[in-house]
């Protein structure tokens, strides 16, 4: 954990405020935005750890975007970091939604607004695809990983399975397979399956 100071807390608030302003389309579209800001620009969290943070934040109840923000905030600067990340992420929402509600603007009925959103949603799809590419590169280290990913995708596409049971299955499978591998290692004194590819 990095040094906590007022400047950094302010930076956390501003970073998540910015993310809140552009996070159209819910929690998943925030992933690449958070990645770029927090991992690449600010270097607050390592590449591997951010994937694990996304994984855990997703399996908790509540808004995915909020959980992820709070989790990243916590990992940077503890409890004050979590609270400021949450507040920063929520401030733009509050301002924008209240303004729209007060003005009673029925924006969605204007054809030009509808057209703008038709342009924005394909970008959101591009953004989320980019997120899965970036995360996949860090998350999937061997053939087993590729297989787990394909099974997950099929289960959600064709069986309409919710993320939570899939996440739980993934965790149980991961514990099982690493346990089996380490036992094989103990018995044969050879490197376990996939060890080389993990270190690749």
């Amino acid at each position: 954990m990095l040094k906590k100071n007022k400047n950094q807390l302010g930076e956390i608030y501003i970073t998540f405020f910015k993310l809140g302003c552009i996070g159209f389309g819910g929690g998943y579209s925030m992933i690449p935005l958070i990645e770029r800001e927090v991992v690449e620009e600010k270097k607050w969290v390592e590449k591997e750890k951010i994937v694990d943070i996304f994984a855990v934040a997703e399996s908790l109840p509540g808004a995915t975007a909020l959980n992820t923000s709070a989790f990243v905030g916590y990992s940077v600067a503890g409890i004050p970091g979590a609270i400021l990340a949450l507040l920063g992420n929520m401030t733009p929402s509050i301002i924008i939604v209240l303004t729209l509600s007060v003005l009673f603007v029925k924006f969605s009925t204007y054809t030009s607004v509808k057209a703008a959103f038709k342009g924005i949603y394909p970008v959101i799809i591009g953004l989320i695809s980019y997120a899965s590419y970036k995360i996949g590169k860090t998350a999937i280290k061997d053939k087993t990983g590729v297989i787990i990913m394909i099974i997950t995708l099929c289960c959600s596409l064709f069986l309409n399975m919710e993320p939570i049971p899939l996440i739980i299955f993934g965790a149980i499978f991961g514990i099982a397979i690493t346990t089996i591998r380490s036992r094989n290692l103990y018995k044969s004194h050879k490197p376990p399956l996939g060890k080389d590819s993990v270190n690749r």
Partner: protein
Amino acid sequence: MIYFKLFLMFFKLCAFAFGGGYVMIPSLIKASEANHWATAAELTDVIAIAGMSPGPVAVNAAVGYGYKVAGFPGAAASFLGIALPCAIIVILVATFFFKVYSHPKVQGALYGLRPVITGIIIYAAISIALKNNIIIAAQDKLIFKGVYLSIFDYNILEVKSIIISIISFVILLTTKISPVFLILGAGILGVLIF
């Protein structure tokens, strides 16, 4: 007292919303009907504004709904109701998580979990494309001014949208251009071509 009731309602909704903000919406509709706080039409407005505003959908819906029902204090009460469970749960879990992070069993679980998350995110992209009628759109839900690539009666994909998706993916991959500019640019482009 209505403010406390609003706070309590969103607190409960948030604490049990496994799977993100969109999961909350059906429960919000039910709770709203039970309390006779807002008409179906008002609720539709709230959800429309929540969906089109940037930021977490759950927060947007809570703030908009609280304001509709009880003005600014209502919005504040709903906001607290949504924020507190997230803050409490995440802080508790995060404290615990970073303590056990390097334990072999936890690393084992994460080894299986990471590819699952990758799959779920790919699915999120596909489901947004489906929801916005960009791929496999029903005949009566085609995008106005869209160009569809169809095989027999199936509208496989909308060409303009897919091109925007691919271009933005490539830009993100190869340049350091901020997604903000992509979103703004796409909004303008949308007005011009749709």
